[in-house]
């Protein structure tokens, strides 16, 4: 009888211990979770770089490589100021990348070689470079870099023409004469690690850039006079 009573009391102590552990663990985990939501940018990071964007290589898909230029932005918003300003210098080449994106890693050396630029993979970057002796504005937008200006990050949705939401994404913004009588930004967007070899990719980008420059050179004086 005594042994049974002792066993029951021991069991009671064990139950109490586990309850204390459960309550403490619950308080700690929910406290830390709420703290992370309140004091870190992790919610936005998960939302922007995991939930709202597609890592194309992760889902074993590539975008179909057909490129067409358009005046209309993907979400109807106006072209950002940093694009409008930089268009006075030359066509703007935007490269969007993120952490943990194997296709971004594939395209990283391609872009370096194509535009002769040296930049760190995990830091957003701006540079004036040249393509066939003409100025190109190169902007690398790394979505996971906390130092990336918000205006740059927001431009991802502006130029995601086909609503692919996929990374990596490349946009070339040039100038073209609109039928309404104005010279306006005219852009084309590509997503994913398109084509099969680096050489094919560079050739493809070269043709696209040449086309951009022919439009840009036709329209730059009219644009520069207005800006």
């Amino acid at each position, binding site marked *: 009888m005594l042994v049974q009573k002792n066993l029951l009391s021991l069991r009671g102590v064990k139950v109490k211990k586990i309850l204390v552990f459960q309550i403490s663990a619950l308080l700690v985990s929910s406290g830390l979770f709420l703290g992370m939501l309140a004091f870190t940018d992790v919610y936005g990071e998960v939302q922007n770089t995991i939930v709202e964007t597609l890592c194309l290589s992760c889902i*074993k898909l590539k975008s*179909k490589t057909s490129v067409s230029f358009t005046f209309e932005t993907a979400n109807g918003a106006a072209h950002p100021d940093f694009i409008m300003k930089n268009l006075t210098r030359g066509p703007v080449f935007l490269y969007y990348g993120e952490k943990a994106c194997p296709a971004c890693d594939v395209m990283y050396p391609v872009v370096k070689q194509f535009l002769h630029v040296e930049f760190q993979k995990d830091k957003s970057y701006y540079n004036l470079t040249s393509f066939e002796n003409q100025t190109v504005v190169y902007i690398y937008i790394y979505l996971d870099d906390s130092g990336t200006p918000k205006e740059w990050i927001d431009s991802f949705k502006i130029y995601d023409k086909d609503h692919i939401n996929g990374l990596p994404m490349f946009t070339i913004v040039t100038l073209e004469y609109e039928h309404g009588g104005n010279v306006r930004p005219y852009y084309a967007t590509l997503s994913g690690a398109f084509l099969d070899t680096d050489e094919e990719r560079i050739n493809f980008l070269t043709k696209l850039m040449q086309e951009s420059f022919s439009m840009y050179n036709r329209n730059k004086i009219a644009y520069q006079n207005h800006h």
Partner: protein
Amino acid sequence: MKLQIKRLVVQFFSLIAINLGFIKQMKTGFCYPFLYCNSCPAATSGCPIRAIEKSLYDHSFSWKLLVYPILILGFFGITTGRAVCGWACPIGLLQRAVGKVPRYLKKKIPLFRRINQWEGERFLRYLKYVTLFSLVIVSPFFFGFMFTDICPIGTFVGTLPTLFLNPSKFAPNPFFWIAIIFFVLFFLLILLVERGWCRYFCPVGAILAPFNKVSYLSVSVNIEGCIHCDVCSDVCPMGINVPEMNRDPECILCGKCIDACPKKLIKFKRS
């Protein structure tokens, strides 16, 4: 309402709730407490495994992305153990839907019965911990994604719907067919072994499983009145020897054993 009907209703509403992402405002910054792909066109949240892999990718360490999903899983783990597997996970619902096939095979074909009764089967359950450690933690840090590349759930709810909904925008890349092979193997597995994915491979299950030992909610068996009819073990989709289980890490708290016990000796227990 019967417990299994209640569970079906909860699973159904969970399936709807996690697929509200087609409404733009419902794309949140939370992580699911189970395995579901954020690449699903209708996903509302992120896959916890994707966040963990990303936190460790390519010799980097982002503590926020590592701790955040673990806290979410920890919260559910401490309160209900692996109940999310049995009550909320959509892949659990899929396995429940096809669960009659392995049960039928086990009943009708002696080979399947023998496989299910094989002593070494319990060791296969450790594979999910190996998957978690090697493919989710070690591989992204040193070599690159491996679990993401072969994840059949990602192929099922992410890749295939994205491809079929946008055939003009996307085309398969060279890894697509490898992923399809793993997807077919996944389907074969869940058709041959009841809850085969949860038992052997689910890395989220591997994170949640140890919480069964300390969770507030658990399944308790009053062994004193047990008549050893084994009906409870027979209906258990996770193949647990129910009378001998003591907060078994494999238990998904589905409650089938509670319904089945003729003596009503099995109950959900709080604390």
